[in-house]
């Protein structure tokens, strides 16, 4: 068994057959994909890569699997029925799915584009990075690896992508396993990235007691008296660790992932790539995908910034020379109550006044559901986390609506917004210029 040092999990251990996945071209490429895109321009030490994140996800997913499938941690007969090996037989099934889970955790990010999520929209219609991951997992280069590991690549795809991104039919068991990797609440992907991003950025917001949380995770019927469908939940003793994870996510969104300067760099990067890439899109052929990493894009960006004849010159300069647009508006709660989309009104007003090239808008609301998961109490009941926790229903839903302008018009634009803010929000200014204003059809 091999081992790799890791600042988050101390050691990540792997079998020789798994080392072949790690050694593949597609996996080695992840050494050159920044986990947090251009965040290092704001938090200089946030230069970690998807490579170590994927190793970390394999480590966390394995720990979760070992806890939730341990017969001592299974409290309901209906759950014991569907976990391979939980009733004493089918040890092979138990080992098989552990191996599939580890492979899927390793491979879940293989399709990520340069600079991770920042460039996601620059794929042809119908393509997302998950589909590229699927193409790689199912491709010729990986075929002998799966044979040696004795796993079905379709099973790896299901667990790596999860139900949301995969059209295949899932059993309840496969659904639970995919949630161990990409689940919205307790996924190993999320646990690892919060801890790792926090560590590398030099902020503490993403830390939580993951040892305690993992140790208390359980597969439970989602309700005691209602549906018996199984889901991933937690023992009562781990509820506070789960709360800490979900608050950590919120704080990481507000303090790191959606830092206003970080976000405008993402927008500038996307604009640069649209001009710089042939046809304005990334290729979807596996070989071309593997050949393109942050390194190639960064080299191209530096060259374009230095040479005015290069495509994307002005856009590259915004990033390389730190001439990024500046935030001049952020939605406030008082304005929210007066208009459905105050940020759009401000954006439209500024565009009508200063022109589209000078103004950018960042409008985002977090995705995913509420933090409702089953909790196994000391009395042996199953209760909704939101009914038991005094804080989970109070975790805010993260949402931003910001407007940025170029440095050249910043002062004038700030004065204009200050002077006209009330009229803009109430719709007296700017609405006639709105291209997609709210209307009933």
């Amino acid at each position, binding site marked *: 068994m091999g081992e790799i040092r890791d600042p988050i999990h101390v050691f990540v251990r792997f079998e020789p057959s798994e080392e072949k996945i790690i050694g593949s071209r597609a996996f080695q490429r992840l050494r050159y994909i920044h986990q947090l895109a251009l965040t290092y321009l704001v938090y200089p030490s946030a230069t970690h890569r998807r490579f170590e994140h994927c190793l970390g996800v394999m480590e966390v997913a394995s720990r979760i699997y070992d806890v939730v499938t341990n017969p001592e941690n299974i409290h309901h007969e209906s759950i014991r029925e569907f976990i391979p090996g939980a009733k004493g037989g089918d040890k092979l099934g138990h080992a098989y799915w552990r191996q599939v889970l580890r492979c899927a955790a390793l491979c879940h990010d293989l399709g990520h584009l340069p600079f991770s999520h920042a460039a996601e929209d620059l794929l042809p219609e119908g393509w997302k990075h998950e589909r590229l991951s699927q193409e790689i997992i199912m491709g010729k280069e990986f075929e002998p690896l799966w044979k040696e590991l004795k796993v079905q690549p379709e099973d790896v795809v299901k667990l790596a992508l999860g139900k949301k991104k995969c059209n295949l039919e899932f059993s309840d068991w496969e659904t639970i396993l995919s949630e161990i990797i990409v689940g919205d609440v307790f996924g190993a992907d999320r646990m690892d990235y919060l801890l790792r991003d926090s560590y590398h950025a030099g902020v503490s917001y993403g830390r939580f007691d993951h040892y305690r949380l993992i140790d208390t995770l359980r597969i439970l019927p989602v309700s005691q008296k209602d*549906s018996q469908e199984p889901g991933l939940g937690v023992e009562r003793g781990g509820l506070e660790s789960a709360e800490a994870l979900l608050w950590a996510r919120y704080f990481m969104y507000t303090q790191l992932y959606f830092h206003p300067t970080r976000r405008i760099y993402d927008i500038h990067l996307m604009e640069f790539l649209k001009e710089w890439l042939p046809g304005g899109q990334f290729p979807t052929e596996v070989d071309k995908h593997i050949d393109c990493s942050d390194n190639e894009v960064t080299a191209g960006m530096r060259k374009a910034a230095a040479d005015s004849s290069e495509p994307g010159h002005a856009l590259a300069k915004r990033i390389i020379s730190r001439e990024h647009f500046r935030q001049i508006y952020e939605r406030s709660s008082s304005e929210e109550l007066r208009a459905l989309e105050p940020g759009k009104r401000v954006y439209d007003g500024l565009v009508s006044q200063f022109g589209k090239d000078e103004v950018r808008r960042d409008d985002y609301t*977090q*995705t995913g559901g509420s933090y409702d998961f089953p909790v196994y109490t000391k009395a042996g009941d199953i209760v909704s986390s939101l*009914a038991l926790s005094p804080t989970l229903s109070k975790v805010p*839903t993260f949402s931003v609506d910001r407007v940025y302008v170029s440095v050249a018009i910043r002062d004038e634009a700030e004065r204009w917004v200050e002077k006209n803010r009330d009229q803009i929000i109430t719709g007296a200014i700017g609405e006639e210029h709105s291209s997609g204003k709210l209307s009933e059809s």
Partner: protein
Amino acid sequence: MESFQRASILLTLNEELRKAGSWAGETHMQKAAFFLQELMEVTMGFDFILYKHGPFSFDLRDELTFMRAQGFLRLEPQYPYGPTLVGGEKSELLKQAFRQTIEKHLTKIRFVSQKLGTKTVAELERTATALYIRLREPAEADPVERLRSLKPHIALPEAQAAVLEVQQITRDSSSLTASKGPLGLAG
């Protein structure tokens, strides 16, 4: 359909479900929206797959989260089950902006709410999955068996009752939908 317009329909669905006695949590909203879009033909652009408790849309889940972020809905925890969704501080603003949209779809929203309002999550799970099989796998010879293969924790008598109930709801809905014959099948 634009996001705020869709939100106005979902907000009305939430209100009508609660009037009909529903818990109106996220699962109730998911299954009722499935009936509203797929059976009643109120096209909201949600893509439903079989997932948590039957037909489920990740886009709809995100839309409900968006509505909470915007103040159109809020969570109200209820022991020991999952929380109820109720109108938020900006719900009236949304309803005023989309009065015509709400009026246009109100009859269908009320029909779905009346049919599903008193159902538990377990009942919604089997009824909605039975409708999913009927609409997406019309060639399925034994929908009861198919339902039980998809949801092994559902007992045979409950699966049979769900399939029969969906047939009845489909018949009852035919006068409200344009493209369906008496059996509720398109064409």
